[in-house]
């Protein structure tokens, strides 16, 4: 079984590596220092288990676990923490595998053998407990069995279709399977609903144009497309943009 170690502290990674050497049938496939690195490595190495520290700079462990859950064959995840009261309570209630620092060898071996993929309800419960950092720093899209990350600050807008949501970002366009409503809730107040099917990044709005009889449209920085503002939301949008 291949194990990926994710922790920002070199001595912590060192120790886990050493402990794993002493446990049969598990081998260290790689090491990552934060969530972003972990996702890049997970796509390449296809580990069976990820030992994931929670508190990390850049992308933290909870968000990384969320992204990894999008893979076709997601790895099992074991969280590691020094001290996180709320997260621990959620882990216990939802039977999520976790380890406390300093990690004991027997505990590690035991947890590894019982490691399982996170289910959707488990993930949701952890994300809720991990607040206030419940808002993701990146969005992930699947591409040929790997995950590609899109930093949220590079997203221009989300456009909802029948089934998918299109993300227009600095690097192009992608499709994700999330509802516009949940995206709106998560990224409020940085994103603004301007239409039943459109959510735009406030920071990337170039101007708001009046295009006719009480009809407005939003122009985004750096692209040609104009997005219509629905009549119902026009007052809100104007107030937000001017205020």
């Amino acid at each position, binding site marked *: 079984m291949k194990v990926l170690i994710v922790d*920002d*502290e*070199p*001595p*912590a990674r*060192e*120790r886990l590596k*050493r402990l794993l050497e002493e446990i049969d049938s598990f081998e260290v496939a790689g090491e990552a*220092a*934060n969530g972003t690195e972990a996702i890049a490595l997970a796509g390449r190495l296809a580990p069976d288990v990820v030992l994931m520290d929670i*508190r990390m*700079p*850049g992308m933290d462990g909870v968000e990384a676990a969320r992204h990894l859950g999008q893979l076709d064959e997601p790895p099992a995840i074991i969280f590691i923490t*020094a*001290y996180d009261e709320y997260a621990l309570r959620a882990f216990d209630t939802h039977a999520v595998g976790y380890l*406390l*620092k*300093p*990690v004991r060898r027997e505990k590690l071996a035991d947890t590894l053998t019982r490691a399982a993929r996170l289910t959707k309800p488990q993930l949701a419960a952890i994300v809720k407990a991990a607040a*206030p*950092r419940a*808002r993701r720093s990146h969005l992930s899209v699947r591409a040929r069995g790997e995950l590609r990350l899109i930093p*949220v*600050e590079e997203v221009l807008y989300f456009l909802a279709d029948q089934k998918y949501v299109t993300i227009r970002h600095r690097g192009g366009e992608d499709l994700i399977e999330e509802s516009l409503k949940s995206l709106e809730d998560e990224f409020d107040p*940085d994103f603004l609903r301007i239409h039943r099917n459109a959510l735009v990044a406030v*920071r990337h709005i170039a101007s708001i144009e009046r295009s006719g009889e009480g009809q407005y449209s939003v122009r985004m920085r750096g692209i040609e497309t104009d997005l219509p503002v629905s009549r119902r939301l026009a007052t809100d949008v104007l107030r937000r943009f001017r205020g």
Partner: protein
Amino acid sequence: MNRSVSDSPSAPAPSFYLPDFCATQTVLAVVLIAELVALVLTLAREELQYGFWIDLARTSLFLLWIGLSSAAVLCYTRPVLARMSVQRASAVSLGLLVAVTLVISEVTFWLGQRWFGGLQSAMGSLFPINHATFLLRNLFIAFIVSALALRYFYIAHEWRRTVEGRARLRIDALQARIRPHFLFNSMNTIASLTRTNPAQAEEAVEDLADLFRANLRETRTQIPLKEELEVARLYQRIEELRLGSRLKVKWNVQALPMDTLVPSLVVQPLLENAIYHGIEPLPDGGTVVVSGTRAGDNLELSIANPVQKQPGGLAHAGNRIALDNIRERLELAYHGRARLDVENRGDEYVVKLTFPLVPRAALQ
């Protein structure tokens, strides 16, 4: 955007002991006191002139007049009184209360003489006849009752302060403890080092022990600056093991008089904050700069850390608690002569401590 927050270390200011006499509750209390005194005076009178109820009504009216006027005067002068020392404010309030009694007694006597004195009516005899006795008696009663009331307000206030103070001390003790994150992470680092670098592990255990000893000291202890900086360095060494090259600390403190006394644990928690909130969230780490200068009779220490640019913007509740705690301890030690300023310069967060130089000899 330049935001600067600056406030002196005045968590709960040692407020004035007299209650606010403009408040309805206090006025009600004044009415109650006046009525009780009227009742006592009437009960104590051996020969009732017109029977109990009329005597009580007469005394009540007179005392209510005095009581409410006194409340009005204190309501008006309270801001001025609050700036005086306790003794002075008490003496002035007492004087004011006696003066109010004097004026009202005089007016009462004058009213009686002028309007009803001539008439041999029932109304006329409700007013006092002997001028000197009337005034003198009233002044004595006013003096005694006012002194008792002031004393009562003072003791009630002190009692409330003690209760609040005790609650604060408990929070102090709680906050003085090292962050659990730090403790367990350090243990983890040491566990890792025991195999790879036993000598370093040994050193880390010693550093951790000294750091805990410093944290267990009574929070009011004053120690030489040199020792306080040493405690901060212990902390830095332990964090360096864990964070590796991500953590750099620059010390510009050579110009400081190392034997000056400072309250213990003011620098280390600030360094801890700078690392926890400033360096740890940065994937590539950064540099914390500790600089100290001497400005006249004051000593200035500043701790600066880089700030992570974050769209959401996290509120650091933990940070504020630590700062409040240090502010309070500075206030206890220096009584308003020390300050802690926080400046958020967008990409840099600076905490600046200013406190008077106290040479060791001065305290011995």
